[in-house]
């Protein structure tokens, strides 16, 4: 066995591990505690939804998980790797290889074609043009886009643009997809398709997904739903756990 990863035992690490994470922005009178003592483990291939009112810290949680920002306190590991300890270059590489991001607002590069947008992370990582193209086509096919890939983002509908963004987030061998309100401006059925796509990823590739959403409809695709309020985890709904208490809601 000469597995170079064996020393870190990454095959057995969760996709994402956050332990007692706190994030404070600013100092003194302008200080904002965006997250307080948040612990969250996302297993390999698991789909976890994060819900909570606006300003409760959902985007901050994803920024920290993706190494875009540093925690004020606590540990963050992606696939066993200590993210806050990484250099800027290592983090950038992490986001091109292991962690895929789908943002609230679409952030495809408008001057690149759909195909080029998806090739970008691979090319930046030094993968050859031909191989990048093949793998980008594969990722686009996985989200149901096989035609007119040489058109520019503006030529696609909102739902299609979001599919391209998902393809770009999953191109290569990603361990973790971080999706921040990816259904933002989409109608219900198109939103359903994007979330179904993310929900199928675990089954298809063993990729873990953290999905931030306002919509209970989309959150219910997740294995677990984590509720944040004022920067703290207040509860969790686990689809696998046995039912508790009596049913609530509107009886027929």
């Amino acid at each position, binding site marked *: 066995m000469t597995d170079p990863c064996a020393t870190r035992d990454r095959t057995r690490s969760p996709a994402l591990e956050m332990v007692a994470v706190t994030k404070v922005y600013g100092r003194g009178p302008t200080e904002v505690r965006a997250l307080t003592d948040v612990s969250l483990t996302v297993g390999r291939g698991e789909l976890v939804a994060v819900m909570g009112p606006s300003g409760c810290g959902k985007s901050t949680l994803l920024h920290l998980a993706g190494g875009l920002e540093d925690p004020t306190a606590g540990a963050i590991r992606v696939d066993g790797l200590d993210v806050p300890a990484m250099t800027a270059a290592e983090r950038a590489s992490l986001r091109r290889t292991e962690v895929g991001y789908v943002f609230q607002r679409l952030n495809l590069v408008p001057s690149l074609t759909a195909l080029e947008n998806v090739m970008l992370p691979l090319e930046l990582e030094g993968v050859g043009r031909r191989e990048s193209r093949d793998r980008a086509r594969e990722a686009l096919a996985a989200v149901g886009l096989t035609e007119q890939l040489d058109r520019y983002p503006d030529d696609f509908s909102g739902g299609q643009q979001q599919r391209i963004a998902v393809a770009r987030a999953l191109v290569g061998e990603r361990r973790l997809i971080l999706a921040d309100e990816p259904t933002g401006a989409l109608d219900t059925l198109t939103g359903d398709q994007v979330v179904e796509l993310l929900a199928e990823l675990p089954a298809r590739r063993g990729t873990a997904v953290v999905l931030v959403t306002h919509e*209970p409809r989309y959150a219910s695709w997740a294995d677990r739903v984590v509720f944040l309020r004022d920067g703290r985890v207040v509860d969790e709904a686990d*689809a696998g756990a046995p039912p508790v208490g009596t049913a609530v809601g*509107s009886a027929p």
Partner: protein
Amino acid sequence: MAVREGLMALLVDEPRHGYQLKTAFEAATGGVWRLNVGQVYSTLDRLHRDGLVAVDDTGEQKRYALTDSGRDALGAWWRATPADDPPPRDELQLKVLLAVEQGPEHALDVITRQRTALTRALQRHRRAQREAAGDASLSAQLVTDALVVRAEADLRWLDLCESRILRARQGRAPSNGGSP
């Protein structure tokens, strides 16, 4: 409730026996609305008494048919729409409204608990939908859709409650947020 109208609707095309009506009703409602035979016969008796169905007891079993006034009553039922007021009085609303009376923290606790349970119900429906994928009858799919959409509506309302309570709390104590 609407069992009367349901049975009448199933008599529109042809007369039927009581037991046939029971199975037809259950099939049409996706198997989630079971009737016992006694309930079917007592409902039919009342419809007969009110002149809405006619009974043919010449055969081995009684057969029921819709009368003209039965057809009129059924037509009126199809056309009737739910009224907006008075406001619906459901237990979830009552619980949250009374919890707010006891203070924002208690209300937020109640909301959290109810929301988690509803979310789990939604997750169960979603799983059932995924497992049934394609196999479920149209009526079963529509019944599940109704359960899902109702749970979603309750969850949306709970989210609104939470946001409004948080906002109200902030407005009352602006220095509350930063203290450890």
